[in-house]
């Protein structure tokens, strides 16, 4: 937890040293960094079966797993090793098989073999362990967002496509593969034990003899409506011939949360003073939908930025800075920078309160949860630094950060080699114009995070542990500093409860709401406004002017002697703007410049096991099953989606 404390101090010192030197004739170098926190948390524990990987579509490739409309039925087979795959793919007598495997076998080679033999595979169920695999696991690509960042054939071609350094060496790219069968995840609990027992009792070959009917079978439902790619399914959404009003896929989207340290005039588009943008990321994902813990990849940076915003609240209110800090939290950065590309697009089109002209510099907080040897790394873009003025600003930025860190127990360094920026929102800003910017990360040449964008990126991966034998109260007291306590509590809250997957636009994800209200509470002030006025975004009944502040009503806590909560209104500068890829505004679904990810609609997500008496009965099992147990049913299975790009 000390990393957040350190970063908070860093900013504080920075402001302390520079902001208050005011009244000389030289311009103040204001706080011009943006905290870009990547907030990701994992929430594996509370869901029984995180459901199968949804289908996500892309214009180039698509990631899908799907079942037929009536569900896929297969004879259960517990995969014991990779060699055991032979039974499923070649020698087994009762295909198609429903393969159950431990997560140790959930590797690229096993899944690719299953994909190639998918005529004999009815589906896959992965048992998720309670402990993270020590060797690491990342279903994301080795070079995340390589085609949507700033590096390309025309900008730093030697740095593009991870030629100099591979950011995610453990990446196996499974999240971006297409599978013709459903893939579900199962928690390792009593129901899963039942499944394994069913296999052992009925399906296991004994002494070399083949298993006989009745056999244990499993049926998985996860029919996805959308196919091929985003352009096709968006076209079919609006196809004039069909009468049905249901859509088959929806774009991924949510909201970006932003808050200037001092109120802007939001009705006037294009603000002319200097702003420094501080950025963070709100989202993450995993192979399975509805699991998106992202502790290191999102939560760590997000919490840091929130803590910094809170710590700087008083300083920025009182000091007269020539530039203001602009805290921003982007959503959808995992999927080709949905949020940041949208914000840059809005700025270019003058649809945003500030312009690209007003942005002086950018500071981003990336993955900062896994400090090793108290080192923090500052990444910069070598191509933009070839320009003299940008180089000067970046040097200033770096030296400011280093100075601020001197008094603390952490060293701030730049990686000594010429290498590109890691995947970060700053890259989208650089696509627009060469800003001086720095990205703070806890690694120098490849991720320290061994579980990047996977279901294992949770509290354990952050090594958030107390000494043993502490009660919860003692655990809280263990972290003494109040800022630390608050940050730690926020982190704990997010890491265990939030799912950071962005989902479709009409569904606001929990981190968005949390961050919006947390930021309001931490940077705003209590206002003497009635509940009705507060909810209607006005100061009082007569207040008709358009506002540059926002109001949010906090329910508050119940005072000790009563049960009714005492609410209050918080006035802050926090706003949310739509984070939907510009490709959907422009209706260019094959866009190479912007993210085109969509998510398919589905009918029902469920599964069940039963005994099947003969092969013919497998087809019509609903009538003939001798014993059936519903394992997964609708409302709890939300994690399925088909993502199309």
């Amino acid at each position, binding site marked *: 937890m000390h990393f957040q404390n350190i970063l908070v101090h860093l900013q504080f010192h920075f402001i302390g040293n520079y902001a208050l030197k005011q009244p000389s004739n030289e311009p103040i170098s204001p706080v011009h960094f943006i905290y870009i926190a990547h907030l990701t948390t994992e929430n594996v524990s509370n869901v029984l079966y995180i459901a199968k990987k949804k289908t996500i579509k892309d214009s180039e490739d698509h990631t899908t797993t*799907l079942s*037929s*409309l009536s569900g896929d039925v297969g004879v259960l087979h517990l995969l014991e090793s990779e060699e055991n795959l032979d039974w499923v793919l070649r020698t087994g007598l009762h295909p198609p098989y429903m393969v159950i495997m431990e997560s140790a076998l959930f590797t690229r080679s096993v899944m690719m073999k299953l994909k190639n033999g998918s005529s004999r595979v009815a589906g896959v169920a992965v048992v998720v362990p309670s402990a993270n695999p020590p060797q690491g696991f990342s279903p994301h690509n080795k070079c995340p967002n390589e085609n949507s960042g700033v590096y390309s054939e025309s900008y730093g071609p030697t740095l593009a496509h991870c030629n100099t350094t591979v950011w995610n060496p453990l990446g196996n790219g499974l999240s971006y593969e297409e599978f013709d069968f459903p893939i579900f995840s199962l928690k390792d609990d009593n129901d899963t034990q039942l499944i394994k027992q069913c296999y052992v009792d009925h399906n296991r070959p004994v002494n070399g003899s083949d298993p006989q009917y009745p056999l244990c079978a499993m049926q998985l439902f996860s*029919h*996805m*409506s*959308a*196919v*091929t790619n985003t352009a*096709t399914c968006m*076209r*079919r959404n609006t*196809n004039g*011939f*069909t009468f049905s009003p249901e859509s*088959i896929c929806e774009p991924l989207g949510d909201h970006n949360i932003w808050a200037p340290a001092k109120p802007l005039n939001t009705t006037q588009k294009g603000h002319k003073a200097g702003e420094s943008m501080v950025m963070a990321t709100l989202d993450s994902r995993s192979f399975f939908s509805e699991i998106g813990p992202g502790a290191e990849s999102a939560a760590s940076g997000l919490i840091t930025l929130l803590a910094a915003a809170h710590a700087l609240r008083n300083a920025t209110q009182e000091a007269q800075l020539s530039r203001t800090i602009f805290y921003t939290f982007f959503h959808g950065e995992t999927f080709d920078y949905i949020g940041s590309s949208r914000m840059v697009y809005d700025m270019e089109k003058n649809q945003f309160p500030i312009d690209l002209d007003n942005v002086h510099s950018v500071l981003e907080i990336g993955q900062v949860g896994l400090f090793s040897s108290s080192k923090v790394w500052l990444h910069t873009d070598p191509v933009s630094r070839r320009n003299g003025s940008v180089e000067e600003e970046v040097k200033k930025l770096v030296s400011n950060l280093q100075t601020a860190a001197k008094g603390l127990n952490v060293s701030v360094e730049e990686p000594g080699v010429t290498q590109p920026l890691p995947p970060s929102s700053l890259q989208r800003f650089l696509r627009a114009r060469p800003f001086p910017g720095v990205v703070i990360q806890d690694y120098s040449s490849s991720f320290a995070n061994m579980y990047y964008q996977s279901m294992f990126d949770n509290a354990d991966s952050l090594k958030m542990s107390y000494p043993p034998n502490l009660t919860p109260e003692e655990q809280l007291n263990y972290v003494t500093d109040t800022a630390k306590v608050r940050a730690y509590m926020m982190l704990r809250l997010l890491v265990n409860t939030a799912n950071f997957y962005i989902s479709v636009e009409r569904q606001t994800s929990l981190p968005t709401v949390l961050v919006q209200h947390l930021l309001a509470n931490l940077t705003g002030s209590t206002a003497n406004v009635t509940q009705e006025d507060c909810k209607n975004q006005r100061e009082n009944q007569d207040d008709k002017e358009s506002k540059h502040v926002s109001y949010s009503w906090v329910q508050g806590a119940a005072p000790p002697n009563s049960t009714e909560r005492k609410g209050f209104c918080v006035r802050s500068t926090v706003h949310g703007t739509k984070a939907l890829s510009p490709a959907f505004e422009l209706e260019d679904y094959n866009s190479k410049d912007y993210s085109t990810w969509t998510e398919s609609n589905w009918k029902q997500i469920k599964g069940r096991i039963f005994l099947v008496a003969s092969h013919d009965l497998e087809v019509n099992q609903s009538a003939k099953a001798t014993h059936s147990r519903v394992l997964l049913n609708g409302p709890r299975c939300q994690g399925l989606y088909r993502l199309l790009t």
Partner: protein
Amino acid sequence: MNLERLPNEEKLSLCRKYYLGGFALLPFLWLVNVVWFFKEAFVKPPFTEQTQIKTYVKRSGLGLFCWVTILTTWITIYQHFRAQWGEVGDYLSFTIPLGTP
């Protein structure tokens, strides 16, 4: 309608109506013609109008065969290639099953 009760002239006129009606892109009329008047044209002992009825039935059969060929060919091509036609395929389709390319 029972053909037994009809006089031969009316049978001929009915056959002719169905034959001519099929030209209005109604191959089922030809199908009905062939099926209904088959006995009259080929099985029954000859009567004056039978030669004409026979002509009509034969020509209806020919027209029917053409239609069946054309439709079968088109349906096969469409079912096989619609997925590959992309946008054109979608615009040609009235309804596309969910979850299929």
